[in-house]
């Protein structure tokens, strides 16, 4: 009666799994290729857009009073008169060799510019990112323990506020309340991490909240909805309760891991919007990050700088999406292992 159901007893455990791993390796390879393609697409699209804009860097640099001859001369000097494909090809070639070109505006090496400014932006984004996810998960878990209870309703109100408020509005309100009225945080300015860690955190807190609070709101709403849905609709939750598992464990060990997929997708999706948030928030707080110069560079037609920034953010998004895929695989064993017989 004990019919052998499932894989043959002869196959060995560890090796079988490793062999099964190689289709997923091929899958990872395909994903990587797609990611590189997307990244390339992003740079190309940026170049196209920048070139479609009327006027050019030479015009911007010399101002409105320049004669056409002067403009033309500068254009030749800056290689701006060469056809689009040549310029793009050159940029792409340089990029593969690790050089991102020089700023048209001030001749500085783009890599240097990014090198000094990226750490600021990166730290700000990390601060906002970690905070929004940590609080998002915590609040969602607390709320879903008792749907429509006190904690839940409160978190819904708070997150609804976060969804409805514009980051720039929030930034100004925060400045008014916590920098002008209550001198807890500096309104503008940045202190680097190496110079003074405490001041560093202080100078980045308000901007991080301005960026992170709307994110937190989206995350907590989605996660809470997913958890509640798992707890109410899924059969394995009933099984867990029928076993006598305590409610907190049912929530944290059963419902939560199965609810994270939506959140991971959303986080990866939202990263692209971060560049916009940074571009608006950094100038408000006078932070010397990449966001602060993005708009100015677009205005100045400083294509290499714009491209450099776009490449960075594009890479971040692409890497994040790859990481998200990896996380799916790690969390969901159905993706990891192929199905057994029947």
């Amino acid at each position, binding site marked *: 009666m004990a019919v052998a159901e499932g894989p043959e007893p002869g196959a060995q455990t560890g090796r079988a799994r490793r062999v099964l791993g190689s289709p997923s390796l091929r899958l990872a390879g395909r994903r990587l290729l797609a990611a590189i393609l997307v990244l390339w697409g992003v740079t190309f699209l940026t170049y196209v857009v920048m070139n479609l804009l*009327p006027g050019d860097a030479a015009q911007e640099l010399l101002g409105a009073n320049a004669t056409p001859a002067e403009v033309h001369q500068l254009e030749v000097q800056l290689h701006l008169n060469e056809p689009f494909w040549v310029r793009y090809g050159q940029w792409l070639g340089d990029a593969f060799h690790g050089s991102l070109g020089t700023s048209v505006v001030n001749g500085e090496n783009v890599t240097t510019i990014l090198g000094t400014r990226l750490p600021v932006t990166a730290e700000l984004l990390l601060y906002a990112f970690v905070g929004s996810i940590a609080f998002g998960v915590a609040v969602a878990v607390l709320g879903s323990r008792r749907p429509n209870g006190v904690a839940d309703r409160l978190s819904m109100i708070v997150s609804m506020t976060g*969804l409805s408020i514009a980051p720039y509005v929030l930034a100004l*309100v925060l400045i008014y309340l916590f920098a002008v009225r209550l001198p807890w945080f500096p309104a503008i300015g940045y202190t680097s991490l190496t110079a003074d860690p405490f001041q560093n955190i202080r100078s980045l807190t308000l901007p991080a909240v301005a960026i992170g609070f709307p994110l937190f709101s989206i995350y907590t709403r989605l996660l809470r909805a997913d958890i509640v849905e798992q707890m109410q*609709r899924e*059969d394995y939750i009933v099984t867990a309760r029928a076993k006598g598992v305590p409610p907190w464990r049912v929530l944290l060990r059963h419902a939560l891991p199965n609810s994270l997929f939506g959140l991971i997708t959303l986080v990866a999706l939202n990263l692209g919007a971060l560049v916009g948030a940074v571009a608006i928030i950094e100038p408000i707080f006078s932070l010397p990050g990449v966001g602060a110069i993005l708009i100015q560079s*677009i205005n100045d037609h400083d294509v290499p700088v714009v491209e450099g920034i776009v490449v960075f953010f594009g890479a971040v998004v692409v890497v994040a999406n790859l990481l998200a895929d990896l996380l799916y695989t790690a969390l969901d064993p159905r993706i990891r292992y192929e199905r057994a017989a029947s």
Partner: protein
Amino acid sequence: MSALLPDLLAPGDPADAKREPRARARAGWARALRLWGPAGFLVLMLAACFGWPNIYPVPNPVRGSVLQAGLPPLSPGHIFGTDPVGNDVFSRILYGGQISFEVGFGVTAIGLVVGGLLGMAAGYWGGAADTIISRLLDVLIAFPALVLALAIAEGLGPSEVHVIWALSVFSIPAVGRIARGATLALRGQTFILAARLSGTRGWRVIVRHVIPNIAPQLMTFSLLGIGVAIILEGALSFLGLGIPLPEASWGSMIAQGQQTLSASPDLVLIPSAFLFATVLSLNLLGDALRERWGVR
């Protein structure tokens, strides 16, 4: 077996007991309020912004006299005061609101139509079409769309129509992804298979079966999208790349007020309040509709 029980519960109702008739009546009132409250506010705002200036004369929003610059709220004749150039804040709020709603609806409409069609096509036909469209949407999503929006707005010159096109770069891929996902989920269902087996042509299936079923999801998502579009229009105007001064836009009003934040915060707070209230109402309405239509 859980399939049996949720049919007995109202969709979207977390399972809390509302047994006594009084409690249930209260819950019914609360539910109605959640829908009609925000809806009512939005109607009010729309009426105020579009209707009031045509019915009742308001001070000109752009040709204020410098002699009346910087008046505080509740000054005679200027209920919200005036800005540093002398324009009446109240009328600028109304006209700015017009811009916000026009941009919000415009962007969302374009997103729904273009994004919706692309997403449905990708989800329904799959294969090459899906791959191409998905990659395209991926690029648009990975692309710092703000750069594109800024570039468009800056390059084409700031104007309302250009802002709408620029912001559609956001709404199209967002709606497209949702539409594609919803269509894919629907495609697996038996009645779609039945329709296709009966020989119904592709577009017919889409129009008659796919659209009605994904419409609630898309509509509630789009309501949220209107709010996002309004905020983004504000952002562009805040950066000086949206609606050009001296025309009124809530975003540029906020940017202007930034300079006098400590001294007269109301120049920032008043347009911010309206912006917040409008977007909040849109979000609340979207939530209430989602609850009523049983959308996930």
